[in-house]
């Protein structure tokens, strides 16, 4: 599974209250959520992400609430994959369940600049930056990979419930 796009960067400890504030949790419509993603941090984020981006994040990305809308909003806004120094557990599951690849790579923040072209191989965890520099993230494996390959938890479950 190969995913690519320009890098859009955020810092450490970006929590789910920032990714999608609680007042929007009465919505599940991806189109509505996409308009408000990262609002407290950067109201221009949806515009920046709309061309299709690889989100590069620092430590503890998605920490805080279990709100699945955080993953839904990011994907709907144009984020094709997230590569972070580390992920909060619940966000990681929500991302995979919504077909949004999430790969952990300690040190990624200092290795990628805003706008760099990033190519990701989800199964091997390999990243190629600007066509030449290679990095290695923890690959997505096991049940998480099966869910991603199915296109998300809903599709994965359809054959199992």
């Amino acid at each position: 599974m190969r995913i690519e796009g320009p890098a859009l960067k955020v810092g450490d400890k970006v929590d789910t209250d920032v990714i999608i504030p609680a007042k929007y949790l009465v919505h599940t419509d991806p189109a509505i959520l996409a308009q408000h993603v990262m609002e407290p941090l950067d109201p221009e984020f949806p515009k920046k992400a709309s061309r299709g981006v690889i989100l590069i994040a620092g430590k503890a990305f998605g920490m805080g609430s279990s709100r699945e809308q955080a993953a839904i909003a990011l994907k709907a806004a144009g984020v094709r994959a997230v590569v972070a120094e580390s992920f909060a557990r619940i966000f990681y599951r929500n991302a995979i369940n919504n077909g949004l690849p999430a790969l952990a790579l300690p040190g990624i923040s200092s290795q990628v600049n805003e706008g760099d072209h990033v190519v990701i191989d989800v199964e091997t965890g390999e990243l190629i930056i600007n066509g030449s520099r290679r990095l290695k993230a923890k690959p997505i494996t096991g049940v998480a990979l099966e869910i991603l390959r199915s296109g998300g938890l809903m599709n994965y479950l359809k054959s199992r419930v």
Partner: protein
Amino acid sequence: MGGTLTEKILGRASNRDVSPGDIIEVSIDLAAFHDLTGYHVVEVMEKLGKVRVWDLDRFVVAFDHLAPPPTQRAAEIQVGLRKFVKSTGVKFFHDVGEGILHQILLERYALPGQVIIAADSHTTTVGAVGAFAQGMGASDVAAALILGKTWMMVPEPFMVRLVGKPSLGVMGKDLALYLLGEFGAEGFNGKSLEFLVEEPSAFPMDYRATVSNMGIEMGADAAMFIPDSETVNYLRMSRDIEVKPIAPDPGARYVDEFTVDLGKLEPMVAAPHSVDNVKPIDELEGVEVDYVFIGSCTNGRISDMEVAARILKGRRVRSRCIVIPASYDQYMKSLDAGYIEVLSRAGCVVTYGTCGPCLGGHFGIAGPGEVVVSTGSRNFRGRMGHPDAKIYLSSAAVAAASALEGRLADPRRYIG
């Protein structure tokens, strides 16, 4: 198998020997959702064409985040969920006013040794009675409700030993904040916390619930208090049941251990805008405070009301103060003890059984530039309303003292 509480519980629930790092499938003992996540769970079930619950004896629903509904959309969500409750035959449904989900689970349902999954991150709260309890997103919970099981990776068990007893004015929240300051937010990512209380009565259930609640802020997969005489007494008093404590095996292998002398703790505060931006109260005293909130699943219990009433008795608050016991039960106990009258006469606005202001929901949204002291669990930018509000997290003692003085204040002046 290392013999820790984590491995014993997950081993039983997956019917195999487990070790940290293993991906396992567990049977769920108890599942739950509230109003703000429940409607999303039901939507997922509808998309799957499977609106059914695997075992209605193991499923709890409570309305709390939108209780009572502050908008038409919120009311619509609750009306829809009541229909789901009726058509599915949900047995354990707690409507507006009964209480915050985690407090209800603690009071009525959670048992030592259970695997508990709910659609809310603060599900870790019932780790206080020794359950392996964690939150998940709506899709995961929908799958769990249909199948009665879920997959998880076995976390690394980490032992925290609590010795001695807290000094006057120091409460459960101060231990939670101390650990956040030491280890950082997400410091226990990939780990499950197991707390061993050397002197069980020194750290009562209310304090344990606060610490387990904040386990998610520390990044822990679960935050469990190893069951002891305090656990047995709590369940006997609150539910009239006798439980046998389960324990780690002697020589159980933990990834690491940390000991806290409870007697050395001081009142602590998490300053804006991060839950691990922790400082002792004396470094922050004097900061002017506009608004104090005492409540939430973190700190809305009788011992929180008791200390607030002790500090505010016969006095008037200088800061706007909103007090919300976390359940009808905690409210009625506080009422019977006279705390509600004391707090009301002190000028606090009191209601019960709602998450309200904790997440900027309703019943006290923070405005631009306001300085807030909250007994909740999160102080991220925008958490309680305007992104320019500044939120300090603290115990109910610090919050009450701060409301009294109109600025961050050390509660020990008013206690003992």
